[in-house]
């Protein structure tokens, strides 16, 4: 069995904090509070969006790659001030968060997601589905992503990706 064997020892408060944290992140993006996005990460961090085909080959180049909180901030500043795109919104549907392992304060966590994209004229589509492969550090009861790899099932991105998943 792959999965939860190691997690029975995790106390309920920590588990709850991690699960809430993952849900809060999705609401932050869907509510367009993107300036808060970097606050979910440690100062040095990895945020990567990559497709399944490349992830299983242990390749590292995907369609978005940030290695510091500053780089996350730059992404959002670019989205707000520089990049040109048609206004659109995401709705994240999360399911099946499981804590796969821990190493001290660092937890390996996976969560499935679906992102539905709605364009301004009303077109809706499944923009992406896949899973988050996270390393979450919990200090003083407060979780932060040290690493969040967004593994998309499809190789395709439709049109463009500017809002993080």
């Amino acid at each position, binding site marked *: 069995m792959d999965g939860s064997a190691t997690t029975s020892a995790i106390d309920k408060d920590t588990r709850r904090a991690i699960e809430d944290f993952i849900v809060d992140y999705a609401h932050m993006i869907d509510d367009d509070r993107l300036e808060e996005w970097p606050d979910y990460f440690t100062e040095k961090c990895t945020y990567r969006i990559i497709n399944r085909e490349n992830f299983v080959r242990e390749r590292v180049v*995907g369609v978005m790659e940030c290695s*510091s909180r500053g*780089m996350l901030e730059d992404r959002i500043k670019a989205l707000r001030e520089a*990049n040109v*795109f048609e206004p659109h919104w995401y709705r994240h549907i999360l399911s099946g968060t499981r804590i796969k392992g821990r190493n001290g304060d660092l937890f390996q966590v996976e969560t499935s997601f679906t992102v539905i994209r709605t364009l301004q004229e009303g077109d809706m589509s499944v923009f992406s589905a896949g899973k988050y492969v996270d390393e979450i550090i919990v200090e003083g009861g407060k979780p932060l992503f040290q690493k969040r790899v967004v593994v998309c099932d499809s190789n395709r*991105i439709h049109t463009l990706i500017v809002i993080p998943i």
Partner: protein
Amino acid sequence: MTQTETAQISWPDDGYSRIPYGVYTDPSVYDDEQQRIFRGEVWSFVGLAQEIPEMGDYRTTYIGDTPVIVVRDGDDGVQVMVNRCAHRGNLVCVAKEGRADELTCVYHNWRYDLQGNLKNVAFGKGVGKKGGMPDDFDPANHGLQKLRTDIYVGLVFATFSETVVPLADYLVDEMRENMDRVLGRDMVVLGTYSQYMPNNWKLYMENVRDSYHASILHMFQATFRMNRLSMKGGIKLSDNGWHHISHSAADSDSEEQQYNSKTLLSVKDGYLLADPSLVDRWREFDCGTTLAIQSIYPNFVVQQIYNSIALRLCLPRGPEECELMWWILGSADDSDEQHDARVRQSNMVGPGGLISMEDGVVGGWIQRGSKRDRNKTTIVEMGGTDVASSEDSRTTEVSIRGFWKAYRELMGV
């Protein structure tokens, strides 16, 4: 006014500076292109030889919208064949990639060798002396359709044409020179992905050749006060105008030239970035070239933007859709530091690229804006109406005109 035989689309001048919108939407134009361009006198990129290193390794892709198999059939040999069983037209290879001793159609077990020769027909002799193929059925006449195939600097190309010039001649000296420079060494694939766009394939290929829009549509560099790539450079066209390179190089006395080629430059521009390591780079090429976007007609692109090296293939997916396949590359000789810099620079390109994402959306907007007016035209007149290299300016649409020169020649319109 001239009109095409099939599509009734008017080309209002004899040159290449007025493009009727109908060519981006008309289904019969799309069908003609498959025949006259993608099955015509061109070489099409189908993948990297290194993606199929061992005998029997194959990948499936498309030339235009025709499915093809690219297979390693020997130590040096790569074979490209139409992915369609001679029997009933079924796909012979369904997987995107794999390894096989022979190619077998799952429908009725017709088996082909790696050269596409038909070796066996299941129950070809019938069962219990009943049924089976007629005696005059000759398997030698019913192999997979083989295409002319050739490889240049690890890039596999194929063509349906028996008459097009050899690949090396098709690419011409100037185009090969740039490919040698960027790709003529041990390259590794760092990542692959695709970008599906709601526009005709030609709108994307025009965008690739459009050096005029770069600093206008893509606001990232201006927003963060970075030096623009377009400051110094020009456009090289092949003599026939079909292929292009848009290039720029650093000034000889600029900071680009002053840093050691082995160490990363923390650029001073981009100082408004919270983390300027996003644009750390090193001088990879002795010539000082900082940017070279090269297109090989009809739909292949070789990209060098600082140390971001990529290949792009724009596949038509119907009159109003296309799919851009990306290969992001590094060199096998990269140090860890250089590898990491390439990974960070990958943020600049692709569907999430800070200086490229807009290219994925603008084609769809043109498609929507122009759809109803098939005989109205675009204006492609920046830098004149001719088709010739522009060595000192990139404020020109000359390479777009080169695209349409090739188009009209191949399409006979």
